[in-house]
């Protein structure tokens, strides 16, 4: 995206959220770009007259913000307590194995998938649970996860 285009988007978001907090503005930026690009944060800081360190402190404090591009599909493997005692972490490892991600990597090179752990989706009754984009899957098994993932390829 050109810097001109970035500026247009940032101005539009700021105008739309005049009365909202910086967190709301960052949420909007992330929903537009899928992550928080550095040049956009710099632009935000200039346009709002807020020190860049404040913008970055929010972007790094809150888990839902990402400074790196995320995949087209976001897989959230729940590791709440109920999912943990029902071996949810095996599902996290399985998803990473299926997508050829190393332990440290979270996003595939082609930006197709991002795999993250999440601390409780509130579906404890159907543990273990995996959410892919907007779809929540309960009583997940390693075998079913592989099948479900294929629908998002």
């Amino acid at each position, binding site marked *: 995206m050109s810097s001109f285009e970035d500026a247009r988007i940032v101005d539009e978001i700021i105008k739309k959220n005049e009365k909202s907090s910086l967190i709301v503005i960052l*949420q909007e930026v992330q929903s537009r770009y899928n992550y928080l690009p550095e040049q956009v944060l710099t632009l935000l800081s200039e346009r709002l007259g807020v020190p860049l360190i404040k913008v970055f402190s929010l972007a790094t404090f809150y888990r839902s913000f990402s400074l790196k591009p995320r995949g087209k599909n976001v897989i959230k493997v729940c590791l709440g307590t109920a999912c943990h*005692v029902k071996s949810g972490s*095996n599902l996290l490892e399985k998803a990473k194995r299926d997508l050829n991600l190393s332990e440290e990597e979270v996003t595939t090179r082609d930006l197709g998938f991002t795999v993250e752990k999440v*601390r409780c989706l509130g579906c404890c009754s159907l543990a273990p649970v995996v959410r892919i984009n907007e779809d929540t899957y309960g009583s997940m098994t*390693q075998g079913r996860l592989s099948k479900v993932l294929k629908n998002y390829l």
Partner: protein
Amino acid sequence: MSSLKDLERLKAEGMNSLFPSKTKIMVGMATCGLAAGAQEVWQNLHQEVKKRKIDVLVKKTGCIGLCQHEPLVDILKPGYPRITYDRMTPEKVGEVLDDLVKGKFKKAIMARIDQEEFLLDDTRTRYSKGKIPAYITSILPYKRLPFYKKQKRVALRNCGFLDPESIAEYVAKGGYFSLVQVLRGGKPEKVISQIKRSKLRGRGGAGFLAGVKWEVCRNADGDGKYLICNADEGDPGAYMDRSILEGDPHSIIEGMLIGGFAIGADQGYIYVREEYPLAIERLQIALTQAQEEDLLGKNILDSGFDFEIEICRGAGAFVCGEETALIQSIEGNWGEPKPRPPFPAVSGLWGKPTVINNVETWANIPVIIAKGAHWFNGLGTSRSKGTKVFSLVGKVNNIGLVEVPMGISLREIVYEIGGGIPNGRKFKAIQTGGPSGGCIPKNLIDLPVDFDELKKAGSIMGSGGMIVMDDRTCMVDVAKYFLSFLEDESCGKCVPCRVGIRRMREMLEDITSGRGREEDIDYLQQMAEAVKEGSLCGLGKTAPNPVLTTLHYFRDEYEAHIRGKRCPAGVCKPLIIYSIDPENCTGCGVCLRVCPQGAISGRKKKPHKIIPSKCIKCGACFEVCTFGAIVIT
């Protein structure tokens, strides 16, 4: 709307919608239902109804609590009891409709409901009239199912009984009449005194008396006051707030309106965690409806009282469930807790007096107003009044949301309501209070559950998560799990919390990897005390609880890891070995096919073997073996 008459009109409309003259089919569409496949059922139901050209209503409803049996589909045919089908699939929908067309019900009924309770009006409406076929009357009614027998639904009164996207149905269930009563009375002090007399304690964790908090806030100096609903339900394993937000959002709005009038606030905020997108959507719909009916805005019901509510979406920080951190987050800062005092009731949002209560607390308010403090006092124990919603999850047969009077024993919850432990395994512990709580062992199973008793046992009530653990749950691993959770979520402000939790987690990492040393237990204990003493907010102060309770009640498991280098529950990967029991193995080959490492060998119909050097202990074989031949030692 501006008068009681208008509300009565909406109530009549809601009654027609609750009990229509034609058959109504309801699908449980909370997140738990959706995760089990309710969306597909919903879509198919609409298509099949259209195909058959039958004249029925298809409606959404919230979660009735039996989440394990989702997707649930209920049929309300005029003159008959309400019928529930469980574990519905898109395929089964057609069969149900075919039978309905023939004038009967498909026989696989899970349970029936004979009458609908109107808690706020203290009335009941019978669904069925006349003679009911024997195949229906032979099915157990909900109230006689072990899961429901001991329940008393107050905060969850409407979940699963109304369409959360219909304000009229909420009004029909007695909703917003408490608000009218309060506004007509015109005396905020009277409302506060009633909440004080009810002895309602906050359902979010600390259990502070709600009425006292309100009074402090009302009496605090300052012109603008605020009110907040804490819907940042962060405790892993607890989801009652999500269920209320998704199943009965107007109860929160009404509770907050009453609170706003009582303390003299004209602005409220609902801080919802972003992991609950459906809750945010349903709340937004409810807020818009309340605005359209003039139940929010200026001069509500012609009383001169103004009130607005705004939703704040969280951004994924557990610490923001702590009230001072939550306030920081609404203000647009990072969620770092502040020292108290001053308490938010004196100086909170934007420095103004602020009352914060959680979702379940707000849901109780309209009931206390309608039925009185005395009624509420009649439920519960001497110092913990009313009911509490628990999410009964983990290794238990009946999984779901249960609401019971305070003081019920853990045994009743686990064995009667929960139906015991599945697969013939042994009960080991129950974890309450999330990462701030602890693990209560088997020998305390008769403990009455209330704020004080749980605290005495070393745990806390917290927001009501109850995770049942069996003999295949490793208590050292559970302690490590909570510490790694809190290590991720510590805001980093205080050193004891930031560094101390990390050091404890590292020690547990060593212990669960077979590198534990004899002195580690003492070090853990000391470190736990230091973190408890030295941290500023609730997160750090309670972080050592899971370690302290497991050390206290399950020291032998720690010792087995340290001295014997083994994990008795078979959980800690570096200490376990997967093997195949040749006695039970039929050589079916299923495990061989799922093993991602090619670590299983064997000929068809002959017992298979696991090659230990290749095995990554992923558990894929254990998951698929139906003969119990995969052994973890």
